[in-house]
């Protein structure tokens, strides 16, 4: 089974500063990769995903992530964060169809943006 490591449990950052949330996964076989965001007392919202094609994927709110197969990483970045980006961020990986696309999640990174 796949495993996901989110290297930072908490990331404090000032508003308008850049941020990178790190994610590594265990397998070298083909996988699908996802970032989800969870605001307090809510479910998970899909932020962005890598399925195939371009290794750089972007979300509508300024986040981007780059799939690096050789380093088995899928780090999430944003050049300038807002207070409203404060949330828990989860990286997830799924195997290909024979697993039913079950998601394996990391433990999450808490992003805290302060003025």
């Amino acid at each position: 089974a796949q495993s996901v490591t989110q290297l930072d449990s908490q990331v404090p950052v000032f508003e308008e500063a850049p941020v990178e949330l790190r994610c590594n996964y265990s397998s070298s076989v083909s996988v699908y990769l996802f970032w989800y965001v969870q605001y307090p007392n809510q479910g998970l919202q899909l932020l962005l995903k890598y399925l195939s094609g371009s290794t750089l994927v972007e979300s509508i709110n300024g986040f981007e992530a780059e799939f690096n197969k050789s380093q088995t990483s899928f780090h999430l970045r944003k050049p300038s964060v807002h207070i409203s980006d404060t949330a828990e961020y989860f990286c997830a990986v799924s195997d290909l169809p024979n697993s039913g696309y079950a998601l394996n999640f990391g433990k999450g990174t808490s992003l805290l943006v302060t003025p």
Partner: protein
Amino acid sequence: DAGVTQSPTHLIKTRGQQVTLRCSPKSGHDTVSWYQQALGQGPQFIFQYYEEEERQRGNFPDRFSGHQFPNYSSELNVNALLLGDSALYLCASSFGSSGETQYFGPGTRLLVL
């Protein structure tokens, strides 16, 4: 377009009791997956239902069971509740033949006393 809905939002039970949680998938989706999220942890996959059958199962005991109805909605049942079953239970839906992307509901928070 309705997203994934779950009921109830909160639930309090005592040890040994049984609980049923419900999920309605996003419109057009036919696959439902259930996840358990303990406090401060990432979600863990429980099982997935497609065409009214359990297609995939995670590392959870048989106390956790489920069902999918012809309208694609789903139930998660947990028997003989333990304190450790206290968690946020998340339902996610996807479209079976290209179901690589799962969309999550708001969750049901279960507290076992």
